């Protein structure tokens, strides 16, 4: 029997992960060689180029959402993991505590300081600043700090009684001076060439100045200096440039038989707002034989408006009246990314950097393989 090439519908069907009431079908992709008799499906750069596209949904400095369509899960996941764990940022790494009489312990305070996200001039952060490596010889540590690998910060704060407080005042922030220590109290101490890269709007400062670090009472003091270094998220989560970088697959909702009238309204309520819309059945549809709309002209019917907003809660599958009328799924090669930056990078730049990073790693691997074969 000669092999017939797959129809467009068949190719589309192969991309869908089926979602049933309690099971999920066709989880793995099947577009690889020897899966379908007579079909090639070996990876091809031209075929990839033809099928690949990117859509931006929104792109703000702290949150970007975009879709990669026509890409394999392995690559999509590599991008996500690279964004989380391999894009370098600057964070507090060492804390030198001169005095800390607050109720928060030195270790806990240091840990809290480390987690504060900082921002600064992009040129300085990404080009000027280099890695700091701890010298193997402990005695050389103090001479390993340079302006291009270490950023100095300082936090000096003392809590005192506020003489101007109204009598009977109970709010500690009014009763005392510096009762709360915030991230904005951290002072940047430029060294060497750092003035050139981190001054004015480019100064190194916390992204969120209102992060509460500690609470003090009169007589208590925090006096410490800090060193920031570059690091990657695989070392510690504080170095991760993203609050989260995640993706989900594009939901697919297929209404296979008409859902009409009150059922349509109930159906719309099974989904998040904006996913399902209600439309009037037109005279033309009602006249069409076998469409399921015969004699229903003017009634409302459910139509899919924006499947991307669906959370795939499967609520509609629980109701008897929708049995067999709707099919849920997800597109296996449509990844909707959500990248939330912590502030040191622009959200979209994190993704571009992840692509560059993966490319570089592939080149490095290629070199290694070539050396191995030689």
């Amino acid at each position, binding site marked *: 029997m000669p092999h017939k090439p797959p129809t467009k519908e068949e190719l589309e069907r192969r991309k869908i992960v089926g979602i049933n009431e309690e099971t999920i079908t066709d989880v793995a992709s099947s577009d690889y060689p020897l899966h379908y008799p007579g079909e090639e499906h070996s990876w091809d750069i031209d075929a990839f180029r033809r099928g690949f596209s990117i859509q931006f949904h929104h792109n703000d400095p702290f949150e970007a959402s975009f879709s990669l369509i026509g890409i394999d899960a392995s690559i999509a996941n590599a991008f996500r993991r690279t964004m989380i764990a391999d894009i370098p940022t600057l964070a507090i790494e*060492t804390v*030198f*505590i001169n*005095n800390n009489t607050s109720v928060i312990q030195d270790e806990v305070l240091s840990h809290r300081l480390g987690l504060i996200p900082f921002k600064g001039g992009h040129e300085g952060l990404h080009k000027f600043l280099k890695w700091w490596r701890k010298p193997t010889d402990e005695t050389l540590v103090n001479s390993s*700090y340079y302006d291009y690998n270490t*950023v100095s910060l300082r936090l000096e704060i003392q809590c005192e009684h506020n003489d101007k407080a109204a009598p009977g005042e109970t709010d500690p922030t009014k009763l005392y001076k510096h009762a709360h220590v915030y991230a904005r109290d951290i002072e940047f101490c*430029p060294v060497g060439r750092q003035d050139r890269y981190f001054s004015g709007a480019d100064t190194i400062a916390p992204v969120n100045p209102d992060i509460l670090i500690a609470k003090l009472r009169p007589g208590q003091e925090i006096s410490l200096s800090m060193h920031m270094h570059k690091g990657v998220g695989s070392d510690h989560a504080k170095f991760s440039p993203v609050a989260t970088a995640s993706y989900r697959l594009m939901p697919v909702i297929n209404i296979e038989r008409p859902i009409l009238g009150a059922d349509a309204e109930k159906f719309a309520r099974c989904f998040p707002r904006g996913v399902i819309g209600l439309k009037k059945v037109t005279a033309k549809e009602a006249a069409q034989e076998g469409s399921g709309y015969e004699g229903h002209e003017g009634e409302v019917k459910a139509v899919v408006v924006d499947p991307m907003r669906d959370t795939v809660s499967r609520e509609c599958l629980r109701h008897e009246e929708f049995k067999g009328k709707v099919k849920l799924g997800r597109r296996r090669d449509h990844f909707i990314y959500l990248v939330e930056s912590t502030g040191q990078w622009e959200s979209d730049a994190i993704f571009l950097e992840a692509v560059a990073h993966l490319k570089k790693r592939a080149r490095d691997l290629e070199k290694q393989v070539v050396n191995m074969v030689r």
Partner: protein
Amino acid sequence: MSREEYQIPTGSASASVGGGAGAGAGGSSSYNAPAVRDYTGSGADGGTMYYMCGDCAVRVPLEKGAAIRCQKCGARVLYKERTKRMVQFEAR
């Protein structure tokens, strides 16, 4: 003298042990290390030890053999002062 050796928290001679190693490069450092804190008060006279009052957190100078009592509020709980050495932590 070893850094780990016990030091009586009086006397100003040993007040600058450690010190946050400043990132100094190029010589043109504009970073000034925080001034060394004076833990001994102005009238440092050898035999006086300072404690923290457990009630009002005031610094209480105590002579040898003196009653253990805060001069300000009369509380009888006094705490030892924290080490004046710089302590280094990893922010993890």
